[in-house]
């Protein structure tokens, strides 16, 4: 990775080992000597928080898997047994279910930070695309995990989401039957969802390694959106970034603990405490909060196939962001118009999230359509044109100048 390490182990054994596998040097160059821009603000701490949350989810998940039974007749009961009879099972389960939400809160902040400061632009396109892939994998993992307690919302959510694929012309029904392993969501579905839910976090971990690797090749973007030019522009990762990241990580845990201990069911659905019943459809089938904007886009389009395409397209379009945004200037700090459009886009996403939780009727449908059109227009119309017409502010000469003023 980046930054040639001058790391030399102190001990004889360490030197012997380092000659054969230079892992100490790798860690030293990646997490100790690695130069980080000195002007990073707190929004840059969410990458570390995300790694932490991935760890929390994997560890709590592995222990939960020791007590969980993936069978339609036993799954709900096994989760309740975890909640009631496993020592601190309630804690593990609430950590895991709320951890998923915290993971998404952190990833959304991380993504919006990247958008605000233009972190996807050259030379960080691959880094950004890897991030989009991680986000997609997270969505898949979250969805699969939500089916496992086998409550009403698990079952009906799984039914609705898998039915998307029936929109594929010609082979749709066949594909859905293949996904289900039967003619309806049933035991084979639950079994494979469990298997995949256990697999995907490790795939995420793999892509995270690539993401961090790509980050350490190109270096971090920063609030000024200009590349470091001299050593004065950077500080070593340790102790500077480690101190800052640790502080924010623990502060983030305060939020996490607030939900886990005081309102563990706030982010879930009451219906999921009713055991799955294929004969009874809930009044409203609503996905988890982190999918709501995309759910709103899906329902905004009157045609099923086009709706599904719009929904997947709304995520896929993120991968093209480095080329859709034509501006040479990265940071919104120096892009007065983009800054406005960024917040408008943010508000539109929140609006879509709100609409996703509302029934698809009346004014909600009209609003969903308007916001969906704007969502896509932001990428296809606003961003390409802004780069051409926007008058940007002058960039500072260097990062240290932007921090310390022009005297420096």
């Amino acid at each position, binding site marked *: 990775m980046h930054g040639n390490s001058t790391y030399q182990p102190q001990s004889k054994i360490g030197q012997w080992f380092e000659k054969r596998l230079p892992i100490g040097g790798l860690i030293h160059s990646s997490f100790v000597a690695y130069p980080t821009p000195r002007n990073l603000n707190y929004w840059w701490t969410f990458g570390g928080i995300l790694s932490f949350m991935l760890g929390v989810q994997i560890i709590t998940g592995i222990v939960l898997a020791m007590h969980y039974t993936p069978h339609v007749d036993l799954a709900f009961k096994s989760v309740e047994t975890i909640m009631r009879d496993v020592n601190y099972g*309630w804690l593990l389960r609430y950590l895991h279910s709320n951890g998923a939400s915290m993971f998404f809160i952190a990833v959304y902040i991380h993504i919006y930070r990247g958008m605000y400061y233009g972190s996807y632009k050259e030379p960080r396109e691959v880094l950004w695309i890897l991030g989009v892939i991680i986000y997609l994998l997270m969505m898949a993992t979250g969805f699969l995990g939500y089916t496992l307690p086998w409550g009403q919302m698990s079952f009906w959510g799984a039914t609705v989401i898998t039915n998307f694929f029936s929109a594929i012309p010609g082979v749709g029904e066949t594909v859905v039957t293949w996904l289900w392993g039967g003619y309806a969501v049933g035991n084979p579905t639950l079994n494979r969802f469990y298997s995949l839910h256990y697999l995907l976090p490790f795939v995420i971990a793999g892509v995270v390694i690539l993401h961090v690797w790509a980050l350490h090749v190109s270096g971090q973007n920063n609030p000024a959106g200009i590349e470091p030019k001299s050593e004065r522009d950077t500080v070593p990762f340790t102790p500077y970034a480690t101190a800052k990241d640790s502080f924010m990580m623990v502060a983030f845990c*305060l939020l996490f*603990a607030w939900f886990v201990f*005081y309102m563990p069911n*706030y982010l879930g659905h009451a219906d999921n*405490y009713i055991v799955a019943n294929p004969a009874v459809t809930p009044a409203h089938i*609503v996905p988890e909060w982190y999918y709501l904007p995309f759910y709103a886009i899906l329902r905004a389009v009157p045609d099923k196939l086009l709706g599904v395409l719009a929904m997947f397209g709304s995520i896929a379009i993120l991968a093209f962001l480095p080329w859709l945004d034509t501006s040479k200037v990265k940071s919104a700090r120096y892009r007065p118009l983009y800054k406005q459009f960024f917040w408008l886009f943010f508000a539109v996403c929140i609006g879509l999230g709100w609409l996703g*939780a*509302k029934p698809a009727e009346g004014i909600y449908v009209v609003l969903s359509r308007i916001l969906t059109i704007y969502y896509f227009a932001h990428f296809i119309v606003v961003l390409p044109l802004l780069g051409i017409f926007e008058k940007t502010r002058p960039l500072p000469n260097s990062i240290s100048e932007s921090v310390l003023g022009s005297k420096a």
Partner: protein
Amino acid sequence: MTTQRILIALTLAASLGAAGAAHAAEGAPVPPAQKWSFAGPFGKFDQGQLQRGFKVYKEVCASCHSMSLVSFRNLAEAGGPGFSEAQAAAVAAEYKIKDLDDKGEAIERNGRPADAFPAPFANDRAAAAANGGVAPPDFSTLAKARTYERGFPWFVIDIFTQYQEQGPDYINALLLGYKDPPKGFVMPEGGNYNEYFPGHVIAMPPPLSDGQVTYDDGAPQTIAQYAKDVTAFMMWAAEPHLVQRKRIGFQVMIFLLVLTGLLYFTKKKVWSAVH
């Protein structure tokens, strides 16, 4: 800049809460918020209330509603109704449990603390047949499985006030929500009018009446008191570790607050050289 920050915080909170807004009981009034001893960061179950609620459950609700995930031994566990182990065993012994003897013959034996509460019907279909086509819901998770729509801005405020008692408030309101149907309301056969039930037609007839259950601790023997007590009991049945959760939560919050503070000053010290 600060207004922008507040706006961001609010919208973020709104996006979090949007999920909660999804539940709705159309056309029903908002259940009045009750004072629950288990609400808030220091909430605890009231042992006396849980014992009374259990009595109501046992003498009234249990004739139709099962509670299959709760065992007799749970009655004697910390944070619950506070029965002694002997008392829990005595309660268990009042019940008949279907089992097999050593020869594999079906028998009925007296309940033991490890047994779960036996269901009043042999199976769901029998329960449905005896109750107008729909099986009465199991009590084990019911207090967490019911809610009502909070709507904006309440679902945002709830994050800060820790309001988590939609389920109990709804159940309590439902138990007291039986009324004569308004003029012109067409009541299907076997239906009962309830203000708080979605659609207003509920199969369950008014289950409680004044003086129905004898309390030996001097609490009023009224429908309102029964409803509140049994609802609290249902919350315990759904979340038996609630007291432990909130107690540990407070310790965790204190620990994290102190650690956050220490790390903040560590960070400040580390960065003081470069700022």
